[in-house]
């Protein structure tokens, strides 16, 4: 197998893995926010010392794990990726020389 083909295979595998990672959560029916959130809130601070700085009340820092992909967006997303990639590949295929010389 030539170097170009090897690189092409590696590239296709890489893009496929990236797309699979992106599509997997919604393909498995995982829709919307999964509700797991981590709060690092600190509650109201008290400061009883004289002359001390007023303590800040913590408002909590929320980390939501977001899975925003509704299933109805899978088709437009995959379709657009396929159209862009296939269209570009078809044009490039026609423009490529067989002997490697420009």
């Amino acid at each position, binding site marked *: 197998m030539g170097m170009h083909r090897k690189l092409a295979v590696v590239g296709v595998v890489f893009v496929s893995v*990236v797309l699979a*990672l992106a599509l997997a959560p919604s393909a498995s029916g995982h829709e919307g926010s999964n509700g797991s959130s981590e709060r690092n809130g600190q509650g109201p601070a008290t400061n009883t010392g004289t002359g001390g700085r007023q303590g800040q009340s913590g408002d909590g820092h929320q980390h939501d794990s977001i*899975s925003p*992909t509704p299933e109805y967006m899978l088709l437009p997303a995959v379709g*657009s990726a396929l159209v*862009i990639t296939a269209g570009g590949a078809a044009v*490039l295929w026609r423009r490529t020389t067989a002997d490697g010389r420009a």
Partner: protein
Amino acid sequence: MGDRLTPNQALARGLAVALLGAIAAIHIMWIPHKLSEAPYMGVLFIALAVACAAGAAFLSLAGPRLTPAAWSLAAFLAAAPLASYVSSRLVAWPQQREVVGSWGSPLGTPSVLAEGALLVLAVAALSGALREPSVRQASHSERRAA
């Protein structure tokens, strides 16, 4: 725009087109969520998806004179969302407080992978690293002669 490409050039452009397709697809999936959460982000995501499709067409069709512009556009389409992703995780954007520190979101990681790979590819193409050895040698000889 009908100039012939060497296998190296065609392969690099093909990979870049596939990565642009992946970036567009990932951001299209985010559009409904972003439009409801922060409409300006939804509009930006739509613009990015359209720009990725246009960039892929440009990269496929560009002749020798426009090739640097096409690769520059590809680099921008990779770097802009990458920079936005990183900055939005570090600093709260309007209506986007909840994503600060959220580095492992399900679509963020694949998006960063695709954008990073495209950025590396575009920089390599712009720096001349992807040219055929014979072409590289010829241009090197031309520079020495000049």
